[in-house]
Structures are given as C-alpha cells and as structure tokens.
C-alpha cells in the first residue's frame, strides 16, 4: 500500500499541494483527476522521489520515501515504472535504444532477448517499423507510446502514468487503456494514472481520486464519484462525458 500523508509543496509563494492525503491500494488502478495546473504532475513526481515535499510523508508498505538515502531510493525505484507527461525519451537514442535502455542497465540479457523484448513492447503499444527512428522524428502520440513501452519493459510492480492517452486518437487511446488494464492484471500490480479522459477513467478505474485546490476532495469508486455529494466532483465528471451519457 502506498499512503500519502499530509503532503505539502510550494513553489515560492505559490502553494500547489496544501495537504494531500490518499491511500492507494495494491493491485488496483487508481486514477487521479483534477483541473489543469492543479498539481497532479507535481504529486506524481513526489511519489517517485523526483521532488521533495515541504512537509508530509509518502509511505510505501510503511517505509517513508521522502527522506530515503540515495542507494535505498534507487532500490525502491526499481519497483516503479513511470510514463512522463511529455514522454521524456532520450533524444540522443533511437526508439530501439530507448526501450532497451532499462534492460541494458538492470538486466543481464543477450542482444537477441533485448531485440525480442523491444519488438514485443512496440507491438503492444501498436507500433512497428520505428525502431531506427529518433524521438525527434516521431509525433507526440508516438513518443508517448514509446515512453509507455520503455516504462513497462521491466515489468514494474507500481506504474505511474502521467496522461497516457492525452493527444491520442480514440482507437489508440482505447488500445492503450486496455494495455494498462492488461499490464495491471498480469502482474497484479498497482497503477496510478493521471487522466483527463473521464470516459476511460470511469471504465478502467477501481478508485478515482480528485485533486482540487491542493487537496484530495473526493475518493471513491466510479459509481460513488458519479453520485458524489460534492457538486464540483459531479460537474467535473459530467462535463467530461458526452451528453446523456448517464442515461
């Protein structure tokens, strides 16, 4: 279990996280929603130790991640995979080398195994014949999918996705959503997703958490959230859906 306790973070005078509390259950898909610029990416970056909070804790099975020594943090990160909002591919490496990178760093594998793994991962995200292309030669959506392939290549038990389908067409989005569900089920792992795609969120989430004004204002199953007492939550979900979707 991943537990966020009273997490606070400011940039200068701008208070972004004002005390976030959230429990994320193992073996579930948790989707974090919230308006643009409300601090979702900042929250995700805290979970993997890329940012240090001003206050508060992040407990992974009881171990506080916010003040781990460097070596410990490295070991914990081996259990995580992360898809960045802008993919963050290495622009000096082609697609093949980007996906192979975690394997080369952390696994003793032959070139043949690497090549097979890369091919399979690319297929999973619906791409082929792009191995030799550089990130600069890909579209935004393609970069995101390569980033996804790279994030999943070591089968991490906890995966953080920052807007995995933003900017993708509906068909590819659906395929990526299915891949996320599949991945989560295969390894009984934990997935934490930031998403603006309300329809997909309602379909794949076990738990939805809404970040608003620096705090989690609502947590619950899709059903619970649709009928939440807080009008902000209901409106947010409603506007994300086609008209009469409820009916």
């Amino acid at each position, binding site marked *: 279990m991943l537990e966020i306790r009273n997490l606070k973070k400011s940039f200068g005078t701008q208070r972004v996280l004002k005390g976030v509390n959230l429990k994320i259950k193992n073996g579930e898909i948790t989707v974090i929603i919230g308006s643009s610029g409300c601090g979702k990416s900042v929250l995700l970056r805290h979970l993997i130790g*890329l940012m240090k909070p001003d206050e508060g804790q992040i407990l992974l099975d009881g171990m506080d991640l916010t003040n781990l020594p460097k070596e410990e943090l490295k070991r914990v990160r081996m259990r995580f995979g992360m898809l960045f909002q802008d993919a963050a*591919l290495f622009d000096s490496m082609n697609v093949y080398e980007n996906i192979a990178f975690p394997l080369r760093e952390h696994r003793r594998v032959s070139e043949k195994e690497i090549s097979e793994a890369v091919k399979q991962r690319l297929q999973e995200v619906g791409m082929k014949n792009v191995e030799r292309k550089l990130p600069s030669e890909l579209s935004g959506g393609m970069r995101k999918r390569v980033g996804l392939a790279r994030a999943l290549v070591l089968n991490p038990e906890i995966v953080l996705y920052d807007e995995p389908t933003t900017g993708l067409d509906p068909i590819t989005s659906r395929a990526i959503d299915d891949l996320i569900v599949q991945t989560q089920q295969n390894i009984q792992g934990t997935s934490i997703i930031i998403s603006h795609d309300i329809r997909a969120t309602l379909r794949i989430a076990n738990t939805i958490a809404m970040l608003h004004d620096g705090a989690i204002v609502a947590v619950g199953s899709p059903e619970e959230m649709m009928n939440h007492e807080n009008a902000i939550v209901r409106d947010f979900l409603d506007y994300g859906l086609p008209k009469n979707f409820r009916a």
Partner: protein
Amino acid sequence: MVLVEFGGFIVTMVQGIRALFIRPFRINLIFKEAETIGVNSTFIILLTGLFTGAVLALQSGKAFRLFNAEGVTGAVVALSLFRELGPVMTGLMIAARSGSSMAAQIGTMRVTQQIDALEVMAVDPVSYLIAPRIIAAFVMVPLLSIIFDMMGIFGSYLVGVGMLEINEATFFEKIEAYVKTEDMWDGLIKAAAFGIIIAVVGCRKGFLTEGGAEGVGRATTQAVVIASVTILIADYFLTAMMF
C-alpha cells in the same frame, strides 16, 4: 557568492570522480565522449596551433635578429608553447567548443526531463552523464595540447626557417638544447587540470539548468565564460607552483 559557486564545482568534481570508481564502469560512454571532444576540436586545434606558433616565431624571430640571436627562435617558441600557450590555448578552445556543448546537451536533458527519466530508471545521472565527460576531458585536453604544440612548432619552423631564413640545423639544435622533458610534463599536467575544469563547469552548469530553452542558452554561455576565466586563474597558480 563566488565562493558558493566555487564550492559547488568542487562538489560536482568530487562526485564525478568518485562515480568513476563505482560500478557500473561506463567504458563505452567514456570512449564516446573522448571521441566527441576529439572530433569537435581537432581541426580547430590544428589551425590555431599552426598560427600561434607562426606568429610567435615572427615576433620573436625579428626581435632576436636585433641581437643576432635568431637561432634560439625555435627554442623560445617551443618553450612558451609547451609551458604556457599549448595548454592554455587548447583549454580555451575546448572550453568554447566542448564545454559549451556539454552544458547545452545536459541542460536540454534537464529541461526536457530526460535526467528525471534517468533517475526514475534508477540510473545515477552523475555516473551516466558527468563522470564519463570528466575523465574524457582529463585525457583528451592533454592529447590535443600536444597536437597544438606540434603544430605550433611546425608553424614557427615555416616562418623561422622559411621566411626569416634561420639555419635549419641551428633551429632544431637549440630546441633540443633548451627544452627539457620536464617542460612538457608541466604543460601536460596543466592541460589535464584544464580538462577537468572544462568538464566540471560544463556539466554542472548543464545539470542545474532551469527555465526552458532560454535557460539552456544561459547555462551554455556561463559554462564557457566561467571555464575560460577559471582556466586563466588556475594557470597562474599552477605556473607559480611549478617554476
């Protein structure tokens, strides 16, 4: 302010050098960086070396002729090249050429979150990005300074023997008589120190880049300016220690 900045460079240097001795050893990356520095800078070093030697010979040859001592021109040029101009000019050239590209490259990786991606994948960015560049510059700057010295001597030969009509045999005899191996070693030690300065400054400036493309530009400029000034200051103290 300056002291804090200086302390920061020391920290980066210590971290970078320590990372060299911790697994995994990134031999491939070291060779790649060394090649980049070499490819970036060999031509410019050949060219500046040639003309530096030529102009030194022109100036000093004419002056020595007043005392009928133009025979020592080659030796004087060689000494100033080995001890001073070779390492310093090479250092400045490589600061401009490779120090800037280190800062730009690492700075771009910072602002596009590629360094975050490294960290998330449990790869130490110091060991992956900084350490290979430090060791590569530590080796390559002295090598390039030797090339600079050789080209400089060749340039002074062309001017001295070709234009000023100094006797060829005397020209080389005097070089042999006056230049000691120690002078070469001192120059190489300087060049190696400058290599470390260039890489540490370039890497640290890139590493701490903030604020998008504009920030990368700022980091790049600062890397060149700080490395160049530091080289000249370090040169004074190294010279004072050596002679």
